[in-house]
Structures are given as C-alpha cells and as structure tokens.
C-alpha cells in the first residue's frame, strides 16, 4: 500500500521533470531535468521491486544510478568541449 503511494509520488515527479525537460528554456535546464529524471528512475525501480516482491530489481537500480551520473557528466563534457576525449589540465595546481 505504502509502496504504491511512494510509486505514485515518484511518477508525478517524473512527469513534472519531463515537463521541465521539454520546456527548457536553457539546455542546462534540460540536462538537469534529465539527471533528476534518472535519479527518480532509480528510486522508482527500487520501489517497484519492493511492490512486486522482486528485490532483485535493485541490481538494475544500482547500475542505473551509475550510468545516470556518467551520462550526465558525458553530456556536459560534450556540450562544453564539443568532444569526449578532451582532457582538462587547467585545474592542476602547482602548490599541491
């Protein structure tokens, strides 16, 4: 029962996040919305796994959590540098 309520809340938030991703207005709003959508997906898979008595779904949630983060950073890097292989060396500090 409570799992269903949590699932409903997560679904509503996912819809709101998708709306934000469609509306934008900037590309960073969209990336943020997609990242948030990914976090919600992880929670959704976890809750659904419990709702249907299949906690093995948590493995998928775990992998999705990692892919979501790497995907966000990859898209940001692609946006910013135009390619994925670029290595940023400007942050290296000489006092360390």
């Amino acid at each position: 029962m409570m799992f269903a309520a949590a699932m409903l809340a997560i679904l509503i938030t996912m819809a709101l996040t998708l709306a934000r991703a469609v509306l934008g207005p900037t590309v960073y709003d969209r990336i943020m919305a997609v990242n948030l959508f990914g976090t919600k997906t992880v929670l959704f898979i976890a809750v659904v796994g419990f709702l249907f008595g299949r906690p093995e779904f948590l493995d998928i949630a775990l992998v999705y959590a990692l892919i979501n983060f790497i995907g966000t950073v990859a898209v940001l890097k692609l946006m910013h540098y135009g390619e994925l292989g670029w290595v940023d060396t400007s942050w290296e500090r000489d006092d360390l």
Partner: protein
Amino acid sequence: MKSTLGLTTTLVIFWLLLSGHYTGLILSLGALSIALVVWIARRMDVVDHEVAPVHFTPKLIGYWLWLAGEIIKSTFDVTRRVLRGRGALHPAYEDVPIDQGTAMSETILANSITLTPGTLSVDVRNDVIRVHTVHKDLLVSLREGGMARRVKALEPKAKQS
C-alpha cells in the same frame, strides 16, 4: 603499491557483498573482473592515496551524522522557500574564503556544501569557494566556518604541515 592493495581489497569486499553466489566459476569470474579493473586503474595512472582514502575512516562517521542533521535542517528551510515562492528567495553568488590545506579536504568541504540543500559550490580555486545560495542569509553561516572547521578536523594531524 599500498594504494593498489587498498583498491583491490575494497573491490573484493564490494564484489563479495553484491554477488551472493559463491561457487567456483562465479568466484573466478569475479577475481578476473577485479584484476581487470585494477589493471585499467593502474594503466590510467589514477591509483594514489585518494582512491582508497583509508586514513580518513574513523572520524568520518561522526561527521556524516552531523552532516545528515544539517541536510535535514536545510531541507525543511528550502521546502519552505519553494512553497512560498519568489518572495522567500534572495539568491546570492559570492566567494567564501577557505583554509583547508589539502585538496582532499577542499573536495569534502565543497561536496558537503553542495549536498546541503540551498547552497551550491560552483568553483574552487585559490583558497576560495564560489558559492551560489538560494538566500543570502545562508552565506553568513558558511562564512562562520563551522563546516570548514569540522572538515579540517577530519585530517590526520601529520598531514596538515
């Protein structure tokens, strides 16, 4: 070498916790994947003391509890601001001076600032953290440096020279 050993141990423990299948074939596949990860990490030259920061562990628990309290407090604060709308907002974007000593300490502080709702660290450079906050009052408590002092206390004394 010590760091490689630390990384391997962490991976082995993590694999054993997640797997749940302890038969010969699966175990050897697990050993193979761990060896592959360690080899890639060494090849990428990312294995150093920051990969497995074991020297931090004992004091971290207390810090996490304190941080969890801060997160709960500021979540309620931000929730109130979200529900009240623009009237409760006064976004600010300023530099906060820090004196952490090591890069690890700066990273923990910046991550803690971002993890706390309402404050977001944007850039760390030359002993300042550039912070965006949802209301300028939140900057005041950051400037007081309670969090920075706690993070600094996590470092072993010998490292602060």
